[in-house]
C-alpha cells in the first residue's frame, strides 16, 4: 500500500502576507508555520518546540500575536499575516530592531524574530510599558542566550524612542 498522500485534498488558500496577497495550495491542517516557511519561503519564522511553548514561530495574524505552529492554515484563510520579513511596515519595528542591536537583545538570533514581533505587539497595546509589563509581554518567548535582561532594556529603550517620535 502506498503512503503517498492524496494531493487532491489540498485547498487553495488565499491570505495576505506582509502586505502581499498570496494563494497557496495546502492541506487544511498544514501548520501556518510550515506554509510561511516552505510555501512562501519566509525563513525568518523559526520552529523551536512545535508545541506553542517557545514563541520562536510568532507571527502577527490580523494584528494579534500568535504561535504559527499551532494554527492550521485553513484558519488563516483570508487573514493578514505579518512575519519578521514584513514587520518594518509597522512603524515601531525599525526602532525595536535597532534597540535590539544596540542593547544586545540578539545573541544566537533564533528567538529574535519572534521576540521582536512580541515586542512590537506589546508596544502596540502599551506604548510605554513598565518593566513588569515587558516581562509579561515577552514571557511566551523563550530565550536561552540572553537571560532576557538586555532584551527588556532594548524594549524599554524602543518605547522611549518611540515616544519621542
Amino acid at each position, binding site marked *: 500500500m502506498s503512503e503517498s*498522500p*492524496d494531493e487532491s*485534498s489540498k485547498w487553495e488558500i488565499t491570505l495576505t502576507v506582509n502586505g502581499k496577497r498570496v494563494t497557496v495550495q*495546502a*492541506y*487544511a*491542517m*498544514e*501548520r501556518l508555520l*510550515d506554509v510561511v516557511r516552505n510555501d512562501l519561503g519566509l525563513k525568518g519564522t523559526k520552529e523551536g518546540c*512545535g*508545541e*506553542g*511553548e517557545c*514563541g520562536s514561530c*510568532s507571527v502577527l495574524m490580523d494584528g*494579534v*500575536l*500568535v*504561535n504559527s*505552529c*499551532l*494554527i*492550521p492554515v*485553513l*484558519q488563516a*484563510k483570508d487573514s493578514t499575516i505579518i512575519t519578521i520579513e514584513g514587520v518594518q511596515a509597522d512603524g515601531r519595528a525599525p526602532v525595536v530592531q535597532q534597540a535590539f542591536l544596540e542593547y544586545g537583545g540578539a545573541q544566537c538570533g533564533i528567538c529574535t524574530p519572534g521576540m521582536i514581533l*512580541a515586542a512590537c*505587539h*506589546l508596544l502596540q497595546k502599551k506604548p510605554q510599558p513598565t518593566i513588569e509589563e515587558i*516581562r*509579561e*509581554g515577552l*514571557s*511566551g*518567548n*523563550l530565550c536561552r542566550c540572553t537571560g532576557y535582561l538586555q532584551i527588556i532594556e532594548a524594549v524599554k529603550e524602543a518605547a522611549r524612542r518611540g515616544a519621542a517620535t
Partner: protein
Amino acid sequence: MRAHPANYELVAPGGLSAVLSLLAKERGVWLPIAGGTDVMVEYAAGKLPARKLVSIWNLPELRRIEVFPGEIRIGAGCTYTDLRVHDMVGREFPLLANAASWTGGIANQNRGTIGGNIVNASPAADSLPALLVYEAELILVSANGERRVPYSNFHVAYRKTRLAPDELIRAVCLPRCFSRYYAHARKVGPRKAQAIAKVCLAAQARLENGVVEDIRVAMGSVAPVPLRLVRTEDSIKRKPIDAALLRLARQTTAAEIQPIDDIRSTASYRAAVAGNLVAEFLQALSTRGMQG
C-alpha cells in the same frame, strides 16, 4: 511535526448552524477545533486520534460577551485575551480574569478559548476552578437545540465531560451575585509564566461579624477533575477564622483532594500546598475580607 497533514481533514463551515449540522450528521466523527492551543499540540506530536476536524475558531455566535442584569454570558469562543480586556469580567469576576492572565503566554492567550479549556478538561486548567467557584452554568447547543446545565458536575472523570458528541458549548453563564465576596486566587506553577499548574486555587467568601458566612473553594491539579472542595467549605462555614479553623481547613482539604505523583510534582507536595493555599486564603480573608 509527527503527523501528516494529508491524513487529516479540516473544514470551516463558517457558521454555528453549519457546524452543528455536521456534528449531528456524523456523530462523534468531527472534532471541533477553536484556537488550537491544545488540539494542535496533540496533532503535532502525532497523538491526535481524530482525523476529521471542524473549525469553530472565531464563530461570531461564540465570540461575544453578553451582560444581563442577573448574569454574564461569555461565548465559549472567547479567548483569554478577550476575558482579560473585558471591564466587567475584570470587575465582577476577578478570579476568571486572573486565571486568563495566567494561562500560557500572550500568543496562547490570543488563541486559547474558555470553551476549549472546559472541553479539553485538563485537571490542571487554570480557569476551571474559577468557574466552579462562580457556580457557572453552561449553555450547550446542538442541532436539536440548547440545554443549560450546571458546570459543577460537567467533568465526570479524568478528561471526560457530559458534552454529547453532537454538542458544543455555546456560552458560560456566571451569576452576578458575588460582588460582596472576597475573592482570592493563587496559581502554583513551576515558574512565573507559561506554566502548567502544580496546584491552583480559586476561592471566595463573605465574612460577617468575624464569621465565614459563605464560602466557595475550588482547586486544579489535585484530582482527576477540577475540584470544588465542598466538604472543606462546609467545615469552614459559619465559623470564626482562628488557628483551630486553619488547622481544620488544612485537614479537610487534605482529605478531600486526590493528588498524584507525576513528572511535574509529587502528591505530598501538592497536598501540603493545597492546605497552605486554603489557609492562606482564610488568613487573607480575615485581614482583608472585612472591607469586601
